[in-house]
């Protein structure tokens, strides 16, 4: 057992949390079996997993101290990027999804030119404004994107081809679910790697004390840029996956507040300084929203997200998972806790 500064007793070997996590993982793995008779349940969790990846991606920028209110820009750019490449050029989504991520990263470079010199609240405001640009351009570029009408009949999620065996992922909700689940697990591992590496350390240092980080040899702007680009890349991939999942895009949908606000809310409420906090928040809160609040309030059930972010900022800024003391930064060798 170790004591943190706030007197909170934590124990990494605490069997209850590890057991709970394992149980949750098994549940997710076996969900299609459990929810055999309900496509809706499967859909909700697929969407929850996608939001989990978006929350993870948002958090890569979040640990450097920058709060972005406009991540939907990268989501939408990734979505449209992938969709247009696969529609116009007939490239398989296996390639266009990562390419969509790259397009989003390219857009992030432009964003950085305007926004990266800003800090704190002003950075947040700038990101809020920045979503409008790709949204309005997409809306007006009718010849390419059919504007506000959106694009229908998109290629679905890619086909898995092994030798002569072809499996069309998009045809089966179960396969789609596992596709997104695999991506989510992959991203969790990647983010854990980033957080535990020297890159993660640098970002934490930049967030806490920028001047001291500089004095210690960290090139602050370079690391902030890197975190923004990585964050945009994975958000763009999320957008591309979403587009191919529902086979429809429209500017007000993919550039909408929903995809800016909700990943951010999951990341902050889950635990901005932890790896597992954001995806856990997504996997718990989104199903609650859909299964409990949505039937009660078909219009306006998303008030939940507004309420919890207010409560989180006022009472639990380090998030639920962070409050439990579960955010291990670097390996136990240095005994770090966030």
């Amino acid at each position, binding site marked *: 057992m170790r004591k943190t*500064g706030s007197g909170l007793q934590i124990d990494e070997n605490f069997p209850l949390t590890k057991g709970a996590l394992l149980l949750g993982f098994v549940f997710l793995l076996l969900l299609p079996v459990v929810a055999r008779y309900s496509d809706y349940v499967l859909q909700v969790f697929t969407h929850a997993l996608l939001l989990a990846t978006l929350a993870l991606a948002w958090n890569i920028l979040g640990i450097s101290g920058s709060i972005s209110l406009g991540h939907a820009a990268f989501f939408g750019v990734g979505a449209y990027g992938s969709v247009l490449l696969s529609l116009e050029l007939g490239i398989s989504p296996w390639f266009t999804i990562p390419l969509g991520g790259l397009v989003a990263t390219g857009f992030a470079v432009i964003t950085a030119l305007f926004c990266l010199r800003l800090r704190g609240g002003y950075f947040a405001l700038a990101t809020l404004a920045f979503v409008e640009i790709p949204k309005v351009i997409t809306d007006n570029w009718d010849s390419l994107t059919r504007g506000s009408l959106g694009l229908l009949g998109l290629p679905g999620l890619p086909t898995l081809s092994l030798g002569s065996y072809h499996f069309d992922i998009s045809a089966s909700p179960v396969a789609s679910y596992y596709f997104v689940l695999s991506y989510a697990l992959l991203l969790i591992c990647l983010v854990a790697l980033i957080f535990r590496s*020297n890159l993660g350390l640098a970002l934490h240092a930049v967030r806490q004390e920028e001047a001291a980080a500089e004095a210690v*040899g960290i090139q602050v702007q370079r690391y902030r840029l890197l975190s923004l680009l990585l964050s945009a890349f994975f958000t763009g991939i999320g957008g591309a996956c979403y587009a191919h999942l529902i086979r429809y895009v429209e500017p007000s949908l993919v550039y909408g507040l929903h995809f800016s606000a909700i990943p951010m809310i999951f990341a902050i409420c889950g635990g901005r300084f932890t790896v597992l906090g954001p995806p856990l928040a997504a996997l718990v809160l989104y199903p609650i929203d859909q299964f409990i609040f949505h039937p009660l309030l078909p219009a306006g059930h998303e008030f939940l997200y507004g309420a919890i972010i207010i409560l989180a900022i006022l009472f639990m800024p380090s998030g639920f998972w962070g409050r439990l003391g579960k955010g291990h930064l670097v390996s136990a060798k*240095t005994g770090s806790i*966030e």
Partner: protein
Amino acid sequence: MSLLKLEALSKRFGDCWALKEIDFSINEGEIVGLVGPNGAGKTTLVNLITGRHRPTSGRILFADQEITACKPHEIRRLGISRTFQSSRPFAKMTTLENVVLGRIFSKEFQLFTRQTDIDTAEQLLELVGIAHKARLPASDLTLSEQRRLDLARALANQPRLLLLDEVAAGFSPLAVKQAVELVRRVRQRGVTLCIVDHFLTLSLRVSDRLLALDHGEKVAEGRPQEVMRNRKVIRAYLGTRREEN
């Protein structure tokens, strides 16, 4: 051998000249005290040397290499470290991690922290005397311990020159004594030191030479006893006696 050389160094902020034509050099192995009342420009000088601000005019040479326009991370890699006046540990990280951070970014980028970095960091914590709090969050340390952490972090990259900004401010006499011993131990490791000290508690006891500033100008330099007897220095600190007016 002159390790650090300042040539006609000046800095202006808007209409105000924080430093005017400072000429000074620090020799290898020395301990130099940078003294003067509040607002004399001492911290500005440290900021110029470490790249936080750019000089308005003048040159800074480190081991005969010009570093006037270098950025903070380049300065660090060249072997110059500093501590801050208000000590700034990374509060949410452990003491050990703070020192490790001081080490890993001063050299070639590695993706992961190596065991050697952690071992070196532990040794440094022992040197400054806070090894028993290695795995606690840095925010748990007392003021004196935080200052020592700052020192350990600054030493982590094996600097040739270390700039200490007000490291003994607010210390009790006992703490000052410990600080003196610590500074001597650091010098024994081959580090040249420049100590910014406006209360004179530390620098008088431990410096080989003093540089005294007032209103951005150099008013005296030399051995501590000589500098402290210098009329201009006394006037800077205490003002003038009424008879002299």
